[in-house]
């Protein structure tokens, strides 16, 4: 699974992308975020308030209950501020 981080999520976590193999109990977006929070203080800090984290799976916006598959591209980022 490919993870991408943008904007302040990227700067807080300290990497822009990585390949991960989450444990089997990570079946949806919400449980992915729960697992990521345990991966270190940088992750815990960046993801401490999941309600301000937007998630896209394969470049489409999804909700926390969205199921995940091994080959997915999952992006985490704050609310957008372009335009």
């Amino acid at each position, binding site marked *: 699974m490919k993870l991408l981080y*943008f*904007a302040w999520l*990227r700067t807080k976590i300290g990497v822009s992308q990585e390949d991960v193999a989450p444990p089997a109990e990570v079946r949806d977006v919400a449980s992915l975020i729960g697992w990521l929070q345990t991966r270190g203080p940088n992750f815990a800090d960046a993801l401490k308030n999941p309600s301000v984290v937007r998630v896209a799976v394969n470049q489409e916006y999804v909700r926390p209950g969205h199921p995940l598959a091994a080959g997915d591209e999952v992006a985490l980022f*704050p*609310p957008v*501020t*372009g335009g």
Partner: protein
Amino acid sequence: MAIRVQADDFDIGAELAALTEGDASIGGVTSFIGLVREMGSGPSAMTLEHYPGMTERQLAEIEAEANRRWPLQASLIIHRYGRLEPGDRIVLVATASKHREAAFESCHFLIDWLKTRAPFWKLEETAEGSQWVEAKDSDDAAADKWQQR
């Protein structure tokens, strides 16, 4: 329908002329240009980060939605990324239709939806260092009004 995501500036006159070229059924073109505003105390440049791939996909979906809602002859979204200074152009949205109401509404819709859906993030250079711009509730409210239609 056309989408472009680029670091370079664009030529408004050439873009708008190309939009209507060869289609004499077009009666009106509405366009919106977003510019980098100088904030509070003195000039502050910014860097626009985006999500390559998803950006183009989201802009194309937004544009397709506008074309479903209004009878458009042509539409265009150009959005820049990278470092920009006050007065620089950020975005151009333009729609062409037989009638002006459709052109106005669809152009307004495109920029409102783009503001809450296109994956861009502004990093402002301030006197205290770089700072990520926070999303505005007013942008959500502006986008929401198109949901209620």
